């Protein structure tokens, strides 16, 4: 295919964002229409990429390569494999739904939508990167939209703290990753940023073991690995709805993906040595995150901590370094992205209408906004790994993978599932059922656009849960490729 579909996918949001910044200040509808349209177009393109990806052939496809800085062998080099194509799709759908549910942003809408679009370009760019420099470039590109969007449109109480904490945590992680990246390129003698070449560079074992933690844990900060997870709940909670969706849904996956692509795929020997530590930390993530979520009284914090818990499962899958675990992680990244986006969109809708996120002050909202309640319930079921939903088909292989390397991890981590069920059911009951409080009598139902975006997310999760074959062959092909690099297992 000659049409540079990935470039279009990546840069449509960017161009839309720049265009939005040029609009006159008094046109309040132009930015949102442009943003939603651009996001819809991006979503469409990601679907096309997903559908047209040739699983039988495998490997990297839709490759485009333009020299960027030939001296250092940096190029603009994009392409997707079986792992990144679903993530691209996930980013597309979350970007679209995030824009759609933000329709009512009225404070400086130009900046809001422009930054949201920049964030979109950043995440899409990371997923499609086949060049280490470019990956890092797009990775860091997200810093300022994230910070500003949380600070400007975030929840007034915690936004300054949350935004600064998030930004600095992630920046710390990424600069350590940067040192690792530079070491991979310059110290190893590879002298190229081309991931395809680096994958086959075969660094010596001691080198890999030394530098693996830099890149892996550096990027994994964004995936909220314990003990550097605490930015995530604070950041998610402080952020406005669309940003929470992008952050928890997509950005955390960006971290995990980068940790996989740069850490595990380039330095497999390092991964082998450090895997036990990752397993241990990720297991703490799963159980600890869930336990903390259980005791939260802030609706959004519950979901914030649940993300920490679920990303732990992704990390466990990575650290197993085997087929089942990686397959599960691939699915879990997609599933959790969609699920948590849905969670946060519902939380946002509730907050917008009830003006509180304090669980004891909510209740009976099912009567007022049934569609949102149903969507939340579905997301909750996905979250607790209920069969029939995407969470189950993702978590099941992760546990199978864990059995093969460390049974104790599977046994402990499964507790997380039970605790998750506990807090999800509690939250559903307290927020959506029970008696409707008189203060909430004025609450209105969600808009059609909200329903459409929630509907898309719900359908994706159920479809994937009932027909896993919609996705697993693709991820499997990606996993096989990774296993070839990692070497068996």
């Amino acid at each position, binding site marked *: 295919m000659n049409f540079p579909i990935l470039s279009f996918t990546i840069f449509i949001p960017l161009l839309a964002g720049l265009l939005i910044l040029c609009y006159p200040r008094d046109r309040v509808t132009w930015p949102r229409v442009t943003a939603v349209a651009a996001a819809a177009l991006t979503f469409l393109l990601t679907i096309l990429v997903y559908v047209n990806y040739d699983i039988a052939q495998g490997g990297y496809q839709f490759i485009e390569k333009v020299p960027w800085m030939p001296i250092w062998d940096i190029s603009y080099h994009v392409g997707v494999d079986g792992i990144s194509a679903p993530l691209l799709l996930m980013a597309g759908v979350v970007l679209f739904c995030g824009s759609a549910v933000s329709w009512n942003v009225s404070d400086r809408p130009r900046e809001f939508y422009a930054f949201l679009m920049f964030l979109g370009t950043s995440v899409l760019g990371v997923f499609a990167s086949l060049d280490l420099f470019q990956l890092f470039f797009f990775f860091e590109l997200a810093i300022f939209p994230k910070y500003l969007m949380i600070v400007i449109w975030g929840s007034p109480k915690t936004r300054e703290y949350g935004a600064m904490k998030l930004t600095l945590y992630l920046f710390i992680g990424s600069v350590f990753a940067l040192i690792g990246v530079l070491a991979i390129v310059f110290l190893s003698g590879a002298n190229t940023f081309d991931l395809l070449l680096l994958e086959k560079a075969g660094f010596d074992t001691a080198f890999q073991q030394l530098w693996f933690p830099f890149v892996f844990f550096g990027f994994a900060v964004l995936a909220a690995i314990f003990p550097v997870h605490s930015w995530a709940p604070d950041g998610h909670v402080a952020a406005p709805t669309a940003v929470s969706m992008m952050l928890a849904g997509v950005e955390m996956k960006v971290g995990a993906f980068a940790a996989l692509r740069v850490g595990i795929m380039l330095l497999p020997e390092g991964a082998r040595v450090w895997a036990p530590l990752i397993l241990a930390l990720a297991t703490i993530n799963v159980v600890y995150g869930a336990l903390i979520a259980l005791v939260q009284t802030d609706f959004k914090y519950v979901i914030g901590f649940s993300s920490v818990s679920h990303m732990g499962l992704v990390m466990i899958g990575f650290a197993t370094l085997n087929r089942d675990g990686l397959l599960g992680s691939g699915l879990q990244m997609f599933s959790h992205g969609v699920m948590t986006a849905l969670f946060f969109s519902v939380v946002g809708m509730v907050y917008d209408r009830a003006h509180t996120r304090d669980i004891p002050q909510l209740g009976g909202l099912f009567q007022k906004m049934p569609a949102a309640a149903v969507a939340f319930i579905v997301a909750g079921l996905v979250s607790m790994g209920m*069969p029939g939903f995407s969470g189950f088909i993702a978590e099941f*292989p992760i546990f*199978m993978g864990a059995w093969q390397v460390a049974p104790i991890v*599977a*046994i402990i981590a499964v507790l997380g*599932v039970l605790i998750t069920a*506990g807090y999800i*059911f509690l939250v559903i009951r307290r927020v959506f059922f029970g008696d409707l409080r008189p203060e909430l009598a004025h609450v209105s139902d969600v808009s059609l656009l909200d329903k459409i975006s929630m509907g898309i997310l719900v359908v994706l999760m159920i479809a994937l849960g009932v027909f896993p074959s919609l996705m697993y062959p693709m991820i499997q092909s990606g996993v096989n490729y990774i296993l070839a690099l990692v070497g068996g297992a």
Partner: protein
Amino acid sequence: MDFLMGHLLSWILFLPTIAALVLLLLPDRPGLLRWYTLVASLLPFVLTLVAWANFQTGQPGFQLEEQATWYSAINASYHVGVDGISLPMVLLTTLLMPLAILASFSVKERIKTYMFLFLLLETGMLGVFLALDLMLFFVFWEIGLVPMYFLIAQWGSANRNYASLKFVLYTMGGSLGLLLAIQLIGVVSGTFDLPLLFERWPGLDSGTLLGLPVGTVKSIAFWAFVIAFAIKVPVWPFHTWLPDAHTEAPTAGSMILAGVLLKLGAYGFLRLVLPLYPVESHNFAGWLAALGAAAIIFGAWSAYGQTDFKRLVAYSSINHMGFVVLGIAAAAWVLGTQDAAIALNGAVLQMFNHGLSAAGMFFLVGVIYERTHTRDLTRYGGLFSLIPIYGGVLIFTAMGSLGLPGLGGFVSEFLVVRGAWPVFTLATALSMIGLFFTGAYILKALKMVLHGPLNEQWRGHLPEMNARELLVIAPLVVLMLVIGLWPAWLLDMINRAVVMFF
């Protein structure tokens, strides 16, 4: 027609789901929704009868099998089929479901959601009985929880929040071990297909798995299975969720809970634990028998101590399911012998019978509750004179539950006791004493509701059972009688399956 017959089990399994989705599109008119759901739930029943007719009793193995790719990355497939053990359970489910829906005609609020959840619940339960793939089994095992949770939490009585959460967390907690064990089996044997596993898994007895001796690993997995199913049955002392859940659930929910959901646990023992872990089952059968006897005795005592009618019936379930457990335990100890076959026959038949009688009892409790808005036994009294038809039906059903000769319960309990006596004499003897207490609590309940001095409060306020309610209870009463008098039509199928399978 070929398409229908070729995928008969899939149709039975998914018709309720399809009906549930269609239901969502219907306009919000109570009458329409109720009748639609009733008709929709009758279809699987009819198809089950067709399947029954097409079932070759003499043939070994599973029949009407279907297999399709589902999740080949981890070697799980969509594989369904029935044998003589599961088909009666399917029949029980598809039979009770229309009755439960008919019983729910009195539900007034959010009918659409209610019916939707019921139909989903049916698919979940049927899936467990039909699945021939371990992962698929687990899928349906878990999926049924969700509608049940919401049914209890939304349409239950006063203490529903506590009860529903307890129910779902207990059962999910139990199934965590099951989940892990299933994954373990999948990792070790590379397949989830039950027929294949029956061949491969029990034979694994040497070497190490995951760094542990095979025996240890299998013991761990065995206990994971046992605990999951024991909670569901529920076996004493894992039973504490049951009285709460049953008591707080809406009437139809209790019918299904007691009638079908409890059978899932027992079915799990029969379908998975005995064939997959014959050795471990044998080793631990004594414990299981003791627990079964304990369930019978303590269940009866607890039931006797209740003053809440519904709670009393709930504890009676523990008491009756104890016989199923006892039968299974006896069979596990002497698997392959005639005693085992008799005990298993009794256990499976007891599952079926208890399904009928418990559903009936819960329904009747619901009927009286709807009229009096109380479940307190001390506030009834002498009602027989006011509502003689109800009284008659209640006595009949209670007798069926008690195990009166001539009714279904007697046959199955006799078979269990007959099979278990040579194996676990002491436990069986204790169970017989427990049976005495069963009589005690049932008679106590009958006395307090129907006899004694009339509570004048109810005079003139207590209408007789209406036609719809009679229609619900009639099939149950008839079946109890039929099985009691001529159990052969059912036992024949069960017996052949049991003999061939074990």
